[in-house]
Structure formats: structure tokens, C-alpha cells
């Protein structure tokens, strides 16, 4: 059984890291989590980002957050990537399977995965 003592241990481990992290998160991954996004399958996409950003050791530079309806419900699940000084990248019709390439090539490598973006999708 998980115990609060384990949580206490996590706290002690995290406290040191938090200080290092402040002010550094320069990339922001935003997942649309309104009714349209949730119904289209945004929850597993969000959870895949949270998991894989952590597994790739990118938590210091990448923040994964949620937002409401982005306004293009027919393309949900929609994920936007913001980076200071660069244009926003909008990924559409996302699935959890597509997350690995975005983490590897875009968040880690700095090169957006063009074929998942809204520009490549037939309107």
C-alpha cells in the first residue's frame, strides 16, 4: 500500500530540485482539455506528454499544461507548443502514439514534426 510516508520522502527529494527549476521552463506544451478535447481523446495525449517529458529528462525546460477550448474543435485533440522567440506550433488530431516523435524531435531536437501540424492537415 502507498503511504503518506512515501509521499513525505518524495517531498524531501523534490525540494532540492524545485529551486533549480525556477525560471527555466522555456518550452510550454498546452493541451486543450475542454469538452471537445476530452471527448476526442485529449486525456491520454496529455498523460503521454507528462510521462514522456519526464522520461526524456526534459522537466527542467518543458512545462506541460492544460487549457480550455482552443476554438478548432474539429481538429481535437489539439496541442500547442510555445517557445520564447519562436512561432507557436499547433499539432492537431493528436493521439498518444504521436507524442513520442514530438518529444524526441521537437521538444528535445528543436525541430517541429511538420506532418502532425495543422498546416499539413486537409482543411
Amino acid at each position, binding site marked *: *500500500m502507498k503511504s503518506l510516508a512515501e*509521499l513525505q520522502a*518524495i*517531498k524531501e527529494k*523534490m525540494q532540492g530540485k*524545485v529551486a533549480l527549476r525556477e525560471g527555466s521552463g522555456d518550452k510550454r506544451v498546452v493541451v486543450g482539455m475542454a*469538452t471537445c478535447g476530452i*471527448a476526442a481523446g485529449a*486525456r491520454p495525449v496529455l498523460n503521454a506528454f507528462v510521462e514522456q517529458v519526464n522520461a526524456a529528462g526534459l522537466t527542467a525546460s518543458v512545462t506541460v499544461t*492544460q487549457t480550455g477550448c482552443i476554438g478548432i474543435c474539429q481538429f481535437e485533440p489539439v496541442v500547442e507548443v510555445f517557445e520564447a522567440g519562436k512561432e507557436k506550433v499547433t499539432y492537431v488530431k493528436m493521439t498518444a502514439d504521436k507524442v513520442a516523435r514530438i518529444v524526441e524531435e521537437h521538444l528535445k531536437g528543436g525541430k517541429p514534426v511538420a506532418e502532425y501540424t495543422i498546416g499539413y492537415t486537409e482543411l
Partner: protein
Amino acid sequence: MKDLSLNLLDIAENSVKAGATLTQLLLTQEGDILTFQVVDDGCGMTEEILRGVTDPFYTTRTTRKVGMGLPLLRMAAEQTGGTMEVESRHRDAHPDNHGTVVTAVFHTDHIDCPPVGDLVATVTTLIQGHPDADFYFRHTTDTVQVELDTRDLRAVLGDVSLAEYEVLQWITGFLQDQYNPQET
């Protein structure tokens, strides 16, 4: 919506957007009846908005006031022979006691009743997105009672965010252990 855990996530997101400091997610299974309730202390709705809130074609839209979430929940409940009700007290009329209660009743023996789905993922998703809001989750069935109160976790964690990956992992395990008590 594919399952009830997604409806739950959707309705609870409304509570957070309404500024709730505490959102309670309460599921109670008694025999073939599942009661699904979201209780928040957010800003509440005026009577006018409340009247139209379950009608998908109603809007006072300037930008947007209501959406599809409650109509979808109502549909899911009613197609099992169940019901959905919304009670709300707006903060202008009830400054000390405002908030919204959404209650849906499902007949789980009905062929059109959606599966419950992954409630653990719904709870962790809410906490990940809103680490500064509090959530109380309770799922009671004939065999288990699963509970989580983020206020208890916050008391342990202090200034460490509930959205830290390690904390979310712990929450997932904590809930899963309660669903499968015999495995430990």
C-alpha cells in the same frame, strides 16, 4: 464521451473554471444504481443561466456561457433511464455559500450505460492541470471505498507542487492500491 470518467473530468473542469477552491467528485454504486456527483464551491450560476444550462442550443453567447458538457452528461444518464440535475447558488445572491452541485443517476444494468472508465486517470489529470485547487474524490461500491483528498497531500508536501511527476505517480499508485486491496 466514451465513458463516465471522461464526463467526470469534463464537469470537474467547469468547477475549476468557476474558481472552485474545493471540487468534490463523488461516485456511489448501490446495486444497479450509480450516483455521480460533482460538488464545488465555485462562483455558481445565475438562475437564468441555470435554466438553460442543459439545453445544448441555448446560449446567451457573447463569447460563450455554456457548452456541451452538461447536455452530454444528461444524455448519457437519461439513456440509461436515469436523471441529471443541476443546483447552483450564484455568489452575488449567496456570497457566503455559493457553488454548484451536479448530480447524475445511471442505471448500470441498462445496456446503454457507458463503462465507468479510468477514474484514476481522471483524478490525476485534474490534479496535474490544477495543482493549486483542491479535490476530494470518493468512489464507493459494494466491495471497495476509494478516497483521495488533496488537502491531506498538500499538508505533507508543503511547497512541493502536486503536479510534480513523482507526486502524480504516487497518487496513481495510491488510488490503484485502494481499488485492488488484495494485491498488497
